[in-house]
């Protein structure tokens, strides 16, 4: 949306725009302020001995850790985690969508699978960790399978729900022209559910990361989850804190990437 500023703007309008702008600035300023205050307080509290920096670490030590980590292959660890997450994410999205399509295709299969999906959905997938490791081997494969296990069922349920919520009038309209089931799917149901797809992708990128970190806790030689577990075991809490912060940045960036993709796609297909 672009707002055209013309000289014919009424004083009331100008006042309104100004107030709006000021309100947005105030929110941003407070958000940054809280972060700065928090880090500042943390540093000072650690220095004067109010908190134990051995347990809680402190910003300056985290910064040092970053500088050291940069030489110790920090980028490799980030790369491993991102790679595993994206692999699990893509596998989950594709497999989940395909399964949802098959279930939409056959209402019988959809009905039959209902209780199984409900149970699988509520099962904490991390509990499957040991089984996954035994089947897939203690390595990257187990981690990717873990990410897949966590995101798959949610995708299936989300997409299937979207397919079933497609406006029945659209389907009826296509039927009056004699559309086949495949035509109904590709020309009505799927385009109708592009936003459902993106919403499910947004949930999935986060879930895949949960799966990857859980997997890395159990078996790994590299990755952010590995750094966190390793840091904990050798009581290097600076390393744990540093990894957690990077992890949150990575998570936010991946989510934003999906959001951006959604905006680009939606602006191409929706016009209002």
């Amino acid at each position: 949306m672009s707002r055209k500023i013309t000289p014919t703007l009424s004083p009331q309008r100008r006042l309104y725009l100004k107030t709006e702008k000021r309100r947005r600035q105030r929110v941003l300023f407070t958000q940054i302020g809280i972060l700065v205050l928090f880090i500042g307080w943390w540093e000072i509290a650690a220095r004067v001995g109010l908190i134990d920096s051995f347990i809680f670490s402190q910003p300056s030590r985290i910064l040092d850790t970053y500088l050291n980590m940069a030489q110790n292959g920090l980028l490799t660890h980030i790369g491993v985690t991102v790679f595993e997450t994206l692999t699990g994410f893509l596998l989950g999205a594709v497999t989940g969508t395909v399964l949802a399509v098959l279930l939409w295709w056959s209402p019988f299969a959809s009905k039959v699978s209902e209780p199984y999906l409900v149970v699988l959905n509520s099962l904490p997938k991390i509990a499957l960790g040991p089984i996954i490791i035994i089947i897939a081997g203690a390595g990257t494969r187990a981690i990717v399978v873990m990410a897949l296990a966590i995101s798959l069922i949610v995708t299936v349920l989300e997409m299937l729900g979207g397919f079933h919520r497609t406006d029945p009038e659209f389907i009826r309209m296509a039927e009056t022209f004699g559309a086949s089931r495949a035509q109904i799917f590709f020309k009505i149901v799927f385009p109708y559910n592009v936003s459902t797809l993106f919403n499910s992708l947004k949930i999935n990128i986060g879930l895949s990361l949960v799966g990857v970190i859980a997997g890395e806790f159990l078996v790994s030689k590299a990755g952010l989850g590995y750094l966190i577990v390793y840091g904990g075991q050798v009581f290097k809490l600076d390393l744990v804190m540093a990894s957690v912060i990077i992890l949150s940045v990575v998570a936010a960036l991946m989510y934003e990437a999906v959001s951006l993709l959604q905006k680009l796609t939606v602006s191409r297909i929706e016009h209002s």
Partner: protein
Amino acid sequence: MEVLRIDHIEQTYQAKNGEVAALKDISFHIDKGQFFSLVGPSGCGKSTLMSIIAGLLTPSGGQVLIGGEPVTGISPRIGYMLQKDNLLEWRTIRQNVLFGLEIRHQLTEKNIDHADQLLKTYGLYEFRDKYPSQISGGMRQRAALIRTLAVCPDILLLDEAFSALDYQTRLEVTEDVYQILKREQVTTLMVTHDIPECISMSDFVVILTARPATVREILPITFDIPTRTPLSCRNSPQFSAYFDHIWRELECHEP
């Protein structure tokens, strides 16, 4: 020339507490270019009859003939227009208009030309690259009609096609649609519960009884005015006479 023949149609369906008769021995026929309306007490099975004619539903007895051929399954000779315009919002107006042809794998140059011609004649050509949300309700309904006419159906079914519109738009659209249908010589069967609407548009009104529906009367509608349009005939004194007649016929058969 006879286009549609409804031949002793019966329909019963199975409910949990027994068999329900919806339609009983319904017969009438429509000639080329005629506009028929179907009215009846609410819930009498008008929409069921429409679904049977469109081939979406198989009747328990009797048959529907289009151009002498019995209807089995969804017939390509029928154009069916539903209550909502159902324009797909991710397609442009032109892509929407071509939807039926696309579904039927009939996107030939000749058919596309015909669709473009319809868009031009009915004032939508300059909006062909717009999306449904960018045009008015009346134009949307016109686009939906062109989508149905683009497949060159032998008969057009209008199933409460205007009832989702507000009153003002509805009058405009019926006027529009009437002109288009008369000009393109389209044979039409409309279901409606709006009595003035059916009088203003029809050549014949088929009045059904309450369930199980049978044909109560087939009423020819004529006006002594030179150029009949849905709006102009509303002022004719004959209009209210027809209204009273249909109203009475419907009323005395309500339970």
